[in-house]
């Protein structure tokens, strides 16, 4: 046998060690992120105008009747905190899916108009059609899919180029937001806080009615996306290489788009387009995990953490109560500027 047919055991061991090292770092990061999400979730149940000790909160969550806490924690804080987690996971998953698929951190669904399209449709359905519940979710998902198709179709010219898609998406996002503003301006009876839900995203006044559809969508669609994890990471190598590695590129893309758009639309119908969570979750996850393996799970956890913490900050840290989307927007906008400045410094295009 010649060299190259049988590798030397030392090299095999080195390869195995490097791989185990990467895997163990990844495991640790995921565990720490999950623990932080649990802590932030517990904190959002405990902290408020009246704060409750962990034991009371636990008893409420387990279904016991605790005077005072049962209403405040069980009816007000629990659905809000659950929706924060569900929406964060959904936005994180959907965002990193689009960024991976289009190989560009700017190509997140809240930048290219899909989230704002869903939001405009949800606001329209509520204000002009007087719909609620499932009908609103369905309207949002139809609109989000429609916007995704529209952006894709407008950007299509001998294949889809990332830059064109992003610029067209930014235009579509602006149109959707102006539509939302128009709808809200015609809804006289609405208060300003409610309007903010559809403009920047808000968890104020969350009930189980809003949370449950988003939770069910997450339970159905997240496994679909996670099953595509390895195929999605292979797409980062380019369609040709991925295909040469045995990935069914078109099938992966269609499944991923439908699942991601579904997650976004259900989450948006519940709490509005919480600004920049989709956009930030993936890059932050990539920074902490390193460029190894699928980013789906870490990005989902980062998304949940962002929404939980931003909601706590918005409610209690700033004196006035701000909706969660205002806080995430403050975080996201500088990063967007940073990305654009960096690509231009490097002499690249978007």
């Amino acid at each position: 046998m010649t060299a190259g047919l049988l590798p030397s055991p030392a090299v095999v061991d080195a390869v195995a060690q490097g791989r185990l090292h990467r895997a163990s770092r990844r495991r640790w990061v995921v565990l720490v992120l999950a623990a932080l999400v649990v802590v932030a979730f517990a904190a959002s149940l405990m902290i408020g105008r009246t704060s409750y000790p962990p034991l009371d909160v636990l008893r409420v969550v387990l279904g016991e009747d605790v005077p005072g806490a049962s209403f405040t924690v069980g009816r007000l804080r629990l659905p809000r905190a659950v929706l924060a987690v569900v929406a964060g996971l959904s936005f994180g998953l959907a965002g990193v899916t689009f960024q991976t698929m289009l190989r560009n951190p700017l190509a997140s669904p809240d930048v290219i108009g899909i989230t704002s399209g869903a939001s405009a449709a949800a606001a329209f359905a509520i204000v002009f059609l007087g719909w609620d519940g499932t009908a609103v979710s369905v309207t949002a998902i139809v609109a989000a899919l429609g916007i995704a198709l529209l952006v894709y179709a407008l950007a299509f010219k001998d294949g889809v180029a990332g830059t064109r898609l992003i610029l067209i998406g930014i235009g579509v996002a602006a149109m959707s937001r102006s539509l939302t503003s128009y709808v809200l301006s015609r809804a006289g009876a609405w208060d300003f806080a409610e309007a903010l839900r559809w403009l920047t995203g808000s968890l104020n006044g969350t009930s189980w009615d809003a949370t449950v559809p988003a939770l069910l969508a997450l339970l159905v669609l997240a496994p679909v996306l996670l099953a595509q994890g390895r195929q999605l990471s292979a797409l980062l190598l380019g369609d040709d290489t991925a295909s040469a590695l045995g990935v069914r590129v078109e099938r992966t893309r269609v499944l991923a788009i439908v699942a991601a758009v579904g997650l976004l639309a259900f989450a948006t119908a519940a709490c509005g387009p919480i600004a920049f969570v989709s956009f930030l979750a993936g890059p932050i996850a990539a920074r902490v995990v390193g460029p190894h393996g699928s980013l789906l799970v870490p990005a989902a956890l980062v998304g949940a953490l962002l929404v939980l913490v931003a909601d706590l900050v918005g409610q209690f840290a700033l004196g006035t109560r701000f909706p969660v989307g205002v806080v995430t927007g403050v975080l996201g906008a500088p990063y967007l500027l940073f990305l654009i400045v960096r690509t231009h410094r490097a002499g690249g295009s978007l």
Partner: protein
Amino acid sequence: MTTDHSLAAQALTLAYGERAVIEDLDLVVPPGRITAIVGANASGKSTLLRSMSRLLPPRRGQVVLDGRSVHRLPAKELARTLGLLPQSPIAPEGITVADLVGRGRHPHQGMFSRWSRDDDAAVAAALEATSTTTLADRAVDELSGGQRQRVWIAMALAQQTDLLLLDEPTTFLDVSHQIEVLDLLTDLNRTRGTTIVMVLHDLNMAARYADHLVALAGGRVHSAGDPADVLTQECVRAVFGLESRVVVDPTSDKPLMLPIGRHHMAAPAGALGERT
């Protein structure tokens, strides 16, 4: 060790939109040998290679691997037999060499199967064969062009396919790196019997390294066979529209094409022992 996979294009027509790029083309890839495909720009050589690895569905005809159309084979099954290195593959930002080479194991892993000792061994073998072992923990974006190309070839090797298709593997490389890559592919062919099909734009490199040379012109095979028979002045004229002399390269004993431009036509005919 030789592989006996048969790969052939049969009455293949390929088109982008209305424009046919390859028309009614027949091509048999000799198993266990190195085949080089040459032709002018836009002669359809990359298109042909893409279709042979099923990236482009044929308009008519088919590409047959071991008696079955590649476009009907399950994706992973095909990817365990036939590998492709595209012309400009994309490395994810920050990815390390070992991780990138490991991506070559994709077709060998199921949805739930764990990474195995076989996978590690395949990656190690690919690193050793391409002399990239010392680069294993480096980020791919930091490497030089030649190193990067070796890493991509290592990824294709980790795929452990008996057939390997490469689209212009030497583009953007300086001459010493070109030789390094082509020597590496020759080693691979001689030691493992891997069937290699590559598109090359440098006619002389193709003639030097190929056992089987295929010249494309106008979407068809102009000529195919031993480079000594294929690379002639007539062939260069028909395929590239260029006047030339073809001499014997004293270092490789293979044909060497010397182009004749409007400013360089001084050497007397016959002085160089030409083949006509």
